């Protein structure tokens, strides 16, 4: 019998095709990237799309959605969803601006408090989901409204402008650095923040025991519980991480736009979810990766950029984006093993 079993097992060497498909989540990105090069406008023989500062712009433009999408990946991996991230981003942007400008707080305490608010807000949503057992869609839909209401109240309804300096009603100049560029003025700091978050998340998912727990909760919650995985704690932690990252994105948002407005981040949740799903993570939970999400976010960024570079009519842009999203999702279905 053993020999038969052996044969069954050893036929399972990963084929070239299978190996290729391990990187399926970047297929869409590559396709869109190639299309972008082909359709890019040219000036004096230069392909505008691939110029260094355009690429820097592309990545800078997706950095906020990207940061959010990393947190969203975690939530979706446990089979949940977080619709509140855009509103939490707005709350964090308002918070940073109000604390530093109106309350004259320092850089560090402001950032720490704002991040803590996101963390706690996310954790509370996690509690409602994990302990009361309300579906996360509905918890975070309510959370969206609550965060948006809080941001409105905190800011008085208006965007709070951020001016830099040492005087009263001015934010510390150290904060402005977050919006600058480095490496010869080429790489925006938000991109570096995004990259650090993404790499940290990838490494975290690879090496931590927590990540196994997270996949287990998403893949088979009952099995996870029976194996002694602290399911409730995992869920709360994941929503807290997602809130934290949305807050971080809010800080980046505020510094990039020199203001914190309570209306910042409206609709970002759908972009973030789109990035996650295009990146091959299943909304059913238990399957997916942060690397895919990064590819998904970049795909959306490249798509937006090339449409803008070509000055496509905004209505036609909507159609094209819709079709590309469906096509990218369909690419995910091509796995040899489904």
């Amino acid at each position, binding site marked *: 019998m053993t020999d038969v079993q*052996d044969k069954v*097992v050893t036929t399972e060497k990963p084929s070239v095709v299978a190996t290729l498909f391990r990187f399926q989540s970047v297929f869409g990105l590559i396709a869109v990237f190639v299309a972008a090069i082909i359709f890019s406008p040219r000036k004096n023989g230069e392909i505008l799309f691939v110029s260094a500062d355009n690429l820097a712009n592309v990545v800078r433009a997706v950095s906020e959605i990207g940061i959010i999408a990393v947190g969203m990946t975690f939530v979706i991996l446990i089979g949940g969803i977080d619709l509140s991230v855009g509103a939490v981003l707005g709350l964090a942007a308002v918070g940073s601006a109000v604390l530093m400008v109106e309350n004259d707080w320092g850089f560090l305490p402001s950032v720490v408090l704002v991040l803590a608010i996101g963390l706690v807000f996310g954790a509370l949503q996690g509690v409602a989901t994990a302990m009361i057992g309300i579906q996360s869609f509905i918890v975070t839909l309510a959370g969206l409204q609550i965060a948006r209401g809080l941001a409105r109240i905190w800011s008085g309804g208006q965007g709070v402008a951020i001016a830099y300096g040492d005087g009263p009603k001015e934010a510390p100049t150290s904060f402005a650095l977050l919006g600058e560029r480095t490496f010869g003025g080429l790489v925006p700091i938000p991109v570096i923040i995004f990259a650090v978050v993404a790499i940290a998340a990838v490494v975290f998912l690879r090496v931590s025991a927590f990540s196994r727990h997270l996949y287990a909760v998403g893949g088979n919650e009952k099995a996870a519980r029976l194996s002694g995985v602290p399911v409730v704690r995992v869920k709360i932690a994941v929503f807290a991480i997602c809130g934290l990252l949305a807050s971080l994105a809010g800080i980046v948002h505020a510094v990039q736009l020199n203001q914190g407005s309570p209306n910042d981040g409206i609709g970002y949740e759908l972009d973030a979810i789109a990035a996650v799903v295009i990146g091959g993570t299943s909304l059913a939970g238990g*399957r997916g990766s942060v690397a895919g999400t990064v590819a998904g976010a970049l795909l959306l960024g490249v798509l937006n950029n090339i449409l803008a570079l070509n000055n496509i009519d905004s209505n036609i842009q909507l159609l094209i984006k819709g079709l590309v999203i469906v096509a990218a999702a369909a690419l995910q279905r091509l796995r040899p*093993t489904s």
Partner: protein
Amino acid sequence: MAESFDLVRMVGIGKRYGGVQACHEVDFVLGAGEVHALLGENGAGKSTLMKILSGDVTEYAGSIAINGTPVRFSGPTDAQAAGIAMIHQELDLVPGLSVADNIFLGRELRTTVRTVDRRRMEREARELLDRSGVSLDPRRPVGELRVGEQQLVTIAKAISLDARVLIMDEPTSALTSSEVERLFDVIRELRNSGVGIVYISHRMEEIAKVADRATVLRNGKIVTSFDPRKLSTAEVVEAMVGRPVQTMFTTPDSDTGDELLRVENLKLKARRPRPGRRDPDGISLTVRSGEIVGLAGLLGAGRTELLETLYGVAPGGTRTGRILLQGKPIQPRGPRQALAQGIGFVPEDRRASGLVLFHSILANTVVSSLPSYGRLGVIARRMERAASTRMADRLRLKFGRLQDEVGTLSGGNQQKVVFGRMLLTEPKLLLLDEPTRGVDVGAKAEIYRLLGELAAQGLGVLLASSELPELVGVCDRVVVLRDGRDVASFSTADSGEGELLAAAMGQGAVFDEVGGV
């Protein structure tokens, strides 16, 4: 001093689920180095009792002592810490994680910097799997494994816990006799090293071979406790069911008619081959009307895949060879077409592929035959109720009301619902995949009786099973598959389990250990 304590002592255990008293005043004792079989019909409360012991169910009446120390677990982790491990009846694994990750889930091995030590986990997983007699690649995602392989992984996982008390809730329901033999070797090893083992199974022949003591539960209460080696299977069954079961197998009066199904050199080359799948690779067989034909084979022989191909639900690919139904060639395209042609299918995993557990018995029974209960897409409720009631009576279904959720029925009764659904479509040919997996003896007997009846009325049956006694007892003829090919065919009138097994393993010799009923 410690010697005088039992390893596990459960006293006055009670558990209610709504109106159901799953356990009532149960006293249960397990000694070190003892294999204690827990027997009972479906729904008797075996799993519930063990879930209480393993910390899965935390609200109950009564008390538990381990080695004389009273304990009250607040979750499975507590129980594991106290040295209790359980293999659950349902395969509770995480499909997206690898075999190694599943085995060590919740207690991952760490490196010195607290990261997961993947290499060590894989190595230890391989050793564990080897010990239970499977060579599986520990890196494979569990979702890709077949049911039997998953069951072996859960066994390896439980063994890896190095528990003092190991609970096995139907560990062999998807295994064939060779894997079962391996498992028994492991169990004996563990017993000799002082582990106390609770063994739950509906396969009576296993009990006598492995258990030192047996306790029978009926409706949540202890009925009797005995030494299984001193009782015949018939006596054990009587203790369980509460009345003598005269004939387990009602071998049909093989009054077979015309040829119903003919399969000629059937091959399926999947467009996207899945690792571990064993698609038909040259299978020929026939089923006559009124005939019950068995399909035997080892884990992964391709029985399930053959039935799926015939029903038209195998993954896409090129099919060669011929399939003839009543002499006419057919191309199976899917359940709707198959049902229209008079082919019914009862899948292997009734929970995952058969039932909507939280829907009513009624809804689950009639879903395949809806158009016949009304006109213009409107259902006449009276007709559908009548059909459902008729089927329930015919199958002797034990239920409260037709509106009850099917998930509240015991396993055997759930199986009858899937069965009844197919019968309502009035098929000519019934494809059955492990129809008695996890079903208790009494219910099994009823299913066999029913099969006999149906065959007598001219139905043809193709029955895949891992239980050799069942194949020999129920079928007129058994076709043995190996590696997706048919390798032998026996008439049950003149051959036994040993020959079947030998053919399945591709050996001439007969395994005499595989005992009969």
